[in-house]
């Protein structure tokens, strides 16, 4: 059981002066037993951060603590962590059983205990039939499960997972996801988990850290990240389809602040959308253009919302995904997606969309930061 602290971490590969800075001052605090999700674009430094937590990369600057104790100089084997690597990293010369047992035997776990652990893990991950095979004889998904098994065989202080489910088929991925969730509930081991999958991020994490170019953009609960994104990057990174960012102008009508959004491309008229903020908070932005953030599911049918503002918009395209119809339109000169019920769309050229303004957020157009 352990808490994990990451304080002002910087990482430069190669020469400190000339090299590329990959991590630029990361601060994260994860309490004992918490499940942290790391998300971010490819190459933003997620694996690098995991490697540093594991002790596999040196820390250029800053401090990593486990249970409040600085571990910067501690070699990986003394940190009591288990890690699942992006590329599985199974030992090619060992069969599945030996792969799982390797870490145990180095830690001098008695043979009978090893066997029991292997049996338990193999059952959990449904790899009992594969125990005597070499990694080369396994499929991608099977390898990934063995890699998971190798980590789960130990009960470390901290689990590090680097996109552990990325190569599984959809069904297995769902199963494994709930396995991991249950396992975390049962063992309560502090976990850092890198993923590109929105659903994994939302369902597994106690906390999510969204990274971009070596900087944490936002660190908070899944709900905060989803509903109150700190900036336009987070807003458009999380969620699928992402949050709509609609250029709008603000005005004050009596006590209410209203956002004005141009409808369609050619149409002159605009919609007035009342916001749920006080004039005080937005007074610097009055009369200026801002970005109005609204998730597709908050631009929907009357049946799915109450007390929303209804606006009729032109349809440029419709995608039926099964449960939903994604309706594309133009608002404020940009493409916007609304999530309607398939029945309410049909062949029509226009649609009635209900804007649930309680979930609207505002961003500064220049800096991209949320106005609140």
């Amino acid at each position, binding site marked *: 059981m352990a808490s994990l602290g990451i304080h002002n971490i910087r990482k430069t590969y190669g020469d400190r002066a000339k090299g590329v800075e990959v991590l630029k001052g990361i601060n994260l605090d994860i309490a004992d037993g918490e499940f942290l999700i790391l998300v971010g674009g490819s190459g933003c430094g997620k694996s690098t951060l995991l490697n540093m937590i594991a002790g596999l990369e040196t820390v250029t600057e800053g401090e990593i603590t486990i249970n409040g104790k600085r571990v910067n*100089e*501690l*070699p990986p084997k*003394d940190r009591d962590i288990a890690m699942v690597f992006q590329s599985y990293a199974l030992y090619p010369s060992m069969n599945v059983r030996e792969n799982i047992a390797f870490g145990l035997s180095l830690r001098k776990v008695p043979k009978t205990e090893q066997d029991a652990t292997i049996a338990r893990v193999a059952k959990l991950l449904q790899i009992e039939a594969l125990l005597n095979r070499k990694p080369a004889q396994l499929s991608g998904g099977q390898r990934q499960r063995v890699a998971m098994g190798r980590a789960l065989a130990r009960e470390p202080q901290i689990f590090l997972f680097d996109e552990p489910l990325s190569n599984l088929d959809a069904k297995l991925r769902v199963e494994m996801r709930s396995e991991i969730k249950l396992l975390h509930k049962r063992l309560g081991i502090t976990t850092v988990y890198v993923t590109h999958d929105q659903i994994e991020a939302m369902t597994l994490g106690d906390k999510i850290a969204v990274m971009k170019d070596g900087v944490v953009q936002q660190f908070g609960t899944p709900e905060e990240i989803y509903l109150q994104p700190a900036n336009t990057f987070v807003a458009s990174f999380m969620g699928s389809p992402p949050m709509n960012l609609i250029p709008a102008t603000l005005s004050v009508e009596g006590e209410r602040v209203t956002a004005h959004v141009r409808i369609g491309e050619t149409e002159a008229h605009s919609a007035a959308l009342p916001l749920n903020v006080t004039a005080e908070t937005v007074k610097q932005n009055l009369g200026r253009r801002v970005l109005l953030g609204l998730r597709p599911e908050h631009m929907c049918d009357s049946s799915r919302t109450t007390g929303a503002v209804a606006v009729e918009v032109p349809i440029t395209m419709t995608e039926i995904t099964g449960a939903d119809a994604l309706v594309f339109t133009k608002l404020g000169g940009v493409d916007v997606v609304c999530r309607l019920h398939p029945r309410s769309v049909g062949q029509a050229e226009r649609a009635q969309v209900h804007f649930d303004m309680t979930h609207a957020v505002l961003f500064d157009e220049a800096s991209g930061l949320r106005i609140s």
Partner: protein
Amino acid sequence: MRPLSADRWLPKLVLSPTLLASLIFVYGFILITIAMSFTESRMLPNWEWAGIDRYVDLFDNDRFWVSAKNLAIFGSLFIVISMAVGLFLAILLDQKIRGEGFLRAIYLYPMALSFIVTGTAWKWMLNPGLGLERIVQQWGFADFTFDWLVNPDKAIYTVVIAGVWQSAGFAMALFLAGLRGVDSEIIKAAQVDGATLPTIYRRIIIPSLRPVFFSVALILAHIAIKSFDLVMALTGGGPGTASDVPAIFMYQFSFSRGQLGVGAASAVMMLMTIMAVMVPLMYAEAKSGNAR
């Protein structure tokens, strides 16, 4: 601070003997040799400064120029012919030949032999009295002569013959590996485009072997410049000094004639020659590698 974990210093410890060996026995010794080439050393090292006298001695020595010329002849013919034969055989072998493995093994086995053995064998075969010359005469060409081994103008070419015999198979193996590495989809695409086999080789496959050409040329050049054993065994540098190469020149001046200074100067010239060949080659390769 706690003591560094073993894994921090073990890699350095493991590499340190090699580093030390390289610093002393490669770089240090090169410096000593260079230094020695500027001294009065004769039978024994004598660290009295002599300026460029030893180089003057060297360049005034006809034998050195003979050896340099021989190296140029031998080196260029050896490299070009070995590569041409090697590439030719590799392309032929690449045509889904039955018994390819067997033929490949036959072409390559000379590589396993010492140059001394090769030299000894060819010396016997090329000897004018009982060797090749006599066979051809026995076949009925009574006035056939083949006396290159004892002909001062031709002796160096016998070294080329033996050298190519030994190294062409090696070039073949490298080229064949390169040919096999060419993406078969590219070849299929070219076939679909209607290219004939010779065109495919000329326009697509051979150009993509660039790095292999580079490696083969590098290795053969290296063998050529170091050539010592083969000449020693085949002609001994003779007749007279007619087939001398710099490696023999260096050996004789340093170890038989007690002219350490001149020997060192000739060794330095060999190093410079290798660098003059390798550096542009490697530079060109690195540049085209970056471009790719």
